[in-house]
């Protein structure tokens, strides 16, 4: 007896959603990222203009000086939609938790000398307030930006910053033996210490910047592009001389996160600059202005660790950021 196994191939009537197929130019299977990103934001039938901003529609392309033919050109090179983003972060958090547990279990911070601990506390803990501002700023970009491609990534970036702020608080708690003294001192420094006032003023100016794309350049490119390498490469490197890799283990997430997220920032700037010369000129003008401000604001913070060498360190970081802008985003700064 022979058994014949028959297979029937059923061709699906459609491979993806119509709006995705229109954008891809053909009805072919699309990635989850594309399906979870394209055209999610409503763009018609708003009925009334919002009472709080009668000059604009609820979602309006005119809230920035940047012009785009297609706002969905801002693809995220990491292809993050809610699912992939949470999975990635949860994996990273497991690693970070293990690092924190290891440092606590082996009492590694007891081996770090007091001077290094004080420096770490003086620089890292007040910075959590700047991270919170970065969270608010990216939520603003998400709220007033146009197109899910960029707004969803901005909201992920915003929540990431809340995570970074929480890690910084935890480092403070580990350094002060869970008394939360370091957090109080950090807040005091943020509000009153002269070294932090230029940075505080800068973040407060950013909180009231109206143009969301300008805010994107100022916060995500200029300020983060200088502050993150300063904290987690330069200052971390300086602390390693006496603290070994203990502090680095606690800030490793920030390091990794910055490398990953800059890819998104660079690609967004590249897309906007590639759209038109007017966009490129506008981005360059914003970037120059805000890099200038950020460099000035971060110099006294760098001086907490580097003393009189702070100017030189910031100048090097500026140089690196300018090179990055040229190479990754095609901007001449």
């Amino acid at each position: 007896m022979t058994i014949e196994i028959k297979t029937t191939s059923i061709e699906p009537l459609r491979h993806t959603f119509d709006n995705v197929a229109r954008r891809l130019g053909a009805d072919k299977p699309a990635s989850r990222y594309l399906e979870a990103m394209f055209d999610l934001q409503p763009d018609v039938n708003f009925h009334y203009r919002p009472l709080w901003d009668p000059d604009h529609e609820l979602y309006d392309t005119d809230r920035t000086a940047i012009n785009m033919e297609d706002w969905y050109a801002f693809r995220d090179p990491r292809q993050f939609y809610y699912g992939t983003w949470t999975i990635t972060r949860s994996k990273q958090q497991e690693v970070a938790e293990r690092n924190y547990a290891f440092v606590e279990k082996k009492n590694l911070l007891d081996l770090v000398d007091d001077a290094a601990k004080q420096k770490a506390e003086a620089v890292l803990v007040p910075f959590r307030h700047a991270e919170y501002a970065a969270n608010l700023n990216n939520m603003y970009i998400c709220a007033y930006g146009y197109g899910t491609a960029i707004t969803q990534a901005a909201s992920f970036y915003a929540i990431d910053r809340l995570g970074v702020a929480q890690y910084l608080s935890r480092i403070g708690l580990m350094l002060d033996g869970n008394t939360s003294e370091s957090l109080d001192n950090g807040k005091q420094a943020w509000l009153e210490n002269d070294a932090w006032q230029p940075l505080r003023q800068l973040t407060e100016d950013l909180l009231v910047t109206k143009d969301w794309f300008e805010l994107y350049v100022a916060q995500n490119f200029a300020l983060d592009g200088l502050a993150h390498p300063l904290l987690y490469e330069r200052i971390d490197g300086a602390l390693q001389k006496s603290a070994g890799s203990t502090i680095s283990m606690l800030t490793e997430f920030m390091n990794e996160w910055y490398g990953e997220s800059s890819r998104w920032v660079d690609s967004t700037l590249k897309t906007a600059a590639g759209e038109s010369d007017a966009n490129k000129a506008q981005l360059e003008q914003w970037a120059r202005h805000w890099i200038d401000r950020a460099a000035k604001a971060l110099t006294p913070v760098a001086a907490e660790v580097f003393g009189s060498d702070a100017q030189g360190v910031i100048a090097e970081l500026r140089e690196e950021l300018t090179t990055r802008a040229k190479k990754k985003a095609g901007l001449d700064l």
Partner: protein
Amino acid sequence: MANNNVFIALQNNEEARPIIEAIEQDNSEARVEYAPAMVKIDAPGRLVVRRETVEGLIGRDWDPQELHINLISLSGNVDEDDDEIVLRRGN
């Protein structure tokens, strides 16, 4: 005449789709055949899966060993390193 073809058969799912697309990009002579739940790709003499191409499509780091998760079958001599998996037959 001896059959010089190599092939790779992958499950047709969300994870394998970018790999299939990468193979199509990197192997102009490959023929892709869709069967229920499976995709079989034939190529004359040589077929390559490149890490860089797949990474470009999925937007994250990709280890060529991840291919095996969705691999059904293959034919040809396998030559794999960190950057690519090559199937070849003949010289």
